[in-house]
């Protein structure tokens, strides 16, 4: 799109080669790459809290997941005859690996983490044609794959909390389902409870999410819509709204998974529909489903509806029938 040309009239020793490109000549500093690395940066405190709560075994899980995501991405790009380096350096594979690791319990064997992130990249992203073409959030594809393939491994939270004596091996939502004692709000907020690596640190997640909203990297309507829907639904169903907001992977899902650019709707109205849909499905699964946690499935389900939502909410300034007549009349 740009042409280099010699300036003809300058009488210098060496006429400069000027670029003739079409406008705009400047670009917003927020590129996809920068956005990815900002999201990664806001996830670092979450990983730090996770290490604090669950101990050093968190690190090998995260590293294995990230490295296998990068390997899978590179191999898939090479097999598709695309430049592997370019897609490796955009940070999306690292982000997928990290997000997947944060949804796993601390007792996950390393090979399971590796398998999960390979599936996430290969089936969740590259099978559709790489970043930008995927229908589902890749990290959630990996997580749900592991959840249905190794249900015992993925729901084994034994020995996960080292800080608290009153260790429960069930997640708070499972504890409610089984009628056990549930952690207090403060414990939920600080993360002293059973759960996956990343979903327990509510404060760190909220902080990161707010930073992303402030930088306009994620659309505030999506997390706000999800959380509001869940709270209202829980209140209407006679349950404790705050407990439902703070437990499970809801905050991680609402701020980091559902807001994925590629798999969420384009328009503002679409974002609201999408967010309310996720909130409703989450609560339906939590209250009546066989799994205690439903955020992953809810997000994947609404990812599936995103093309449909786009279809009905994208601006259509001119009716297609008018134009086809007009164009055929011209031709």
């Amino acid at each position, binding site marked *: 799109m740009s042409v280099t040309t010699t300036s003809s009239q300058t009488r210098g020793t060496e006429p400069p080669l000027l670029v003739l490109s079409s406008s*705009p*000549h400047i670009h917003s500093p927020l590129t996809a790459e920068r956005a990815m690395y900002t999201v990664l940066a806001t996830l670092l405190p979450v990983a730090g809290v996770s290490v604090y709560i669950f101990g050093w075994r968190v690190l090998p899980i995260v590293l294995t997941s990230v490295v296998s995501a990068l390997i899978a991405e590179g191999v898939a790009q090479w097999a598709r005859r695309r430049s592997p380096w370019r897609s490796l350096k955009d940070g999306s594979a690292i982000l997928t690996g990290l997000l997947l690791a944060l949804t796993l319990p601390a007792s996950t064997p390393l090979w399971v983490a590796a398998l999960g992130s390979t599936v996430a990249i290969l089936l969740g992203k590259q099978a559709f044609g790489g970043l930008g073409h995927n229908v589902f959030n890749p990290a959630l594809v990996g997580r749900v794959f592991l959840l249905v393939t190794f249900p015992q491994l993925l729901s084994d939270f034994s020995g996960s909390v080292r800080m608290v004596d009153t260790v429960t091996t069930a997640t708070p939502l499972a504890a409610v389902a089984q009628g056990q004692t549930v952690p207090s709000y403060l414990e939920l907020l600080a993360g002293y409870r059973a759960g996956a690596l990343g979903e327990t640190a509510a404060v760190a997640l909220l902080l990161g999410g707010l930073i992303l909203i402030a930088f306009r990297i994620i659309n505030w309507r999506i997390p706000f819509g999800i959380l509001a829907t869940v709270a209202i639904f829980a209140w209407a169903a006679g349950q404790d709204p705050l407990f439902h907001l703070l437990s499970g992977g809801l905050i991680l899902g609402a701020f980091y998974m559902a807001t994925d650019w590629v798999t969420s709707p384009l328009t503002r109205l679409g974002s609201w529909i999408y967010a309310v849909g996720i909130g409703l499905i989450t609560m339906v699964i939590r209250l009546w489903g066989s799994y205690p946690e439903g955020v992953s499935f809810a997000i994947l389900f609404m990812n599936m509806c995103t093309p449909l939502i786009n279809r009905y909410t994208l601006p*259509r300034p*001119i009716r297609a029938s008018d*134009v086809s007549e007009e164009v055929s009349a011209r031709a």
Partner: protein
Amino acid sequence: MPWLWQGRVAPRHIPEIGLRSRANWRSSQVFQPATPLLFPCQDWQGNPLTPQVKRGEEVKVGSVLAAPPNLDSAEAPLVSQGGRASQASQRSSIQAALSTAGRPAAGPVIAAAKGRYGTVHLFSPVAGKVVDISHRPGGSGEFVPVIAISPTAPAQEQEAVEVRELPSSEESRLQLAAAYAGLDLALFRNTDWLVVNGCDPDVGVYGRRCLLRERLADLASGATALASHVGARHAYLAVTRGQLTAAELESLRHDAAPLELLLVPAGYPAGRPEMLVSRLTGKKPNRCHNAGSRRSLLPTTSSPAVYCQDGVTVVGVERVAALGYALHHHRPPAETIVSVDGDAVSRPGVYRVPVGTPLAALLELAGLNLSSLRLLIRGGCLAGQAITLGDAIVGIDDIGFLAFTSAGQRASDAGLCLRCGRCLDACPAGLSPTTIARLAQKSLWGEAASAGAERCLGCGACAYVCPAGRPLVQLIQLAQLQLELVK
């Protein structure tokens, strides 16, 4: 609260990305280039004019340099808002104004000037000798005759004015002044709202805000005459909020009395004429369809000097100041105010230069580092036109130039669409740029039209915000071009 679900009721503006903060720039003394002044034989819309002078001829201030070409009757004049009647009356009144000229040679030229609608003559703002007439690329990229005049003295001190009896009536005086300023009064025929655009329309240009401070007298007299001629119900002076101090605004309000101030929010694209029209009419902004305007051969997405739509006529403040100057001094406007910025110049600032100054001379004055120059832009960062140094000439409509040491964005950096929806948020026309660009990439022109490709202003906000760096506005422009070819 429609902003919750509709989006883009108030488009999210791109902030003023000041290259460096230059809010208080003031122009320096009038610069006199050592080289001859250059006058491309084109009217403000890029229509070609025929030179009326010969090489070696002495010209005076106000001499006719070029006139509209003599079209045969087969080529019908383009008619629009003004209509044929106004065109005829316009022509006859200019002829009446010019026929009083004491220059016999001008007679037959004027009689033959059955120009197409919207064309006007080119008058010499300086006295001097025609040293050269050569074909060079004009502003639109087409080759046009360019008249080079070596001035005998700076324009302000020149006494050699073309003797021309002043028309008696107020009306024909205005006609003559408008012809001097290169303005076509017929374009203002159906004007309900007149807007004098004092907003710097793009990022990185500062000429207009400086003009508002420094040429207030010219501006006021031009605006008063124009407003009374047009008979508009409302006449506004659009000023960007925050660009002038409260005291300066107050003096504007006082001195440019017939104009109401229209405060426009800061940030691109709020100062573009399309956005001003949309602000007044309440309709969604639409692409300009001026009658008789020609599509530039070079890629450009900036707006024309006079823009009419839905009964609103937007005219740039520099043209109105030129009109005021011509009314007051009875001679064509000789100087203009332009800004020069960018990292390739060591003395960025606002400069007063004679109309017709070669850009190379202006950039030399601004301290251009020639060896490091990579990108030269006429206009601003977002809708300006990349040009080459040698052929560019500073004209009345120029507001600013930018010189950079690095070439902006490269198309090869573009990735796949990430469907983030930022372009939808940024689009002032409420379109879905990503959809149109995808259709254009597949050459589905009809579908692109149904997605609103023809309503795109070309402001470039979508391509600016796209995180994947996709050439969105460029693809939409391609679709527009294809759709015009089908027509």
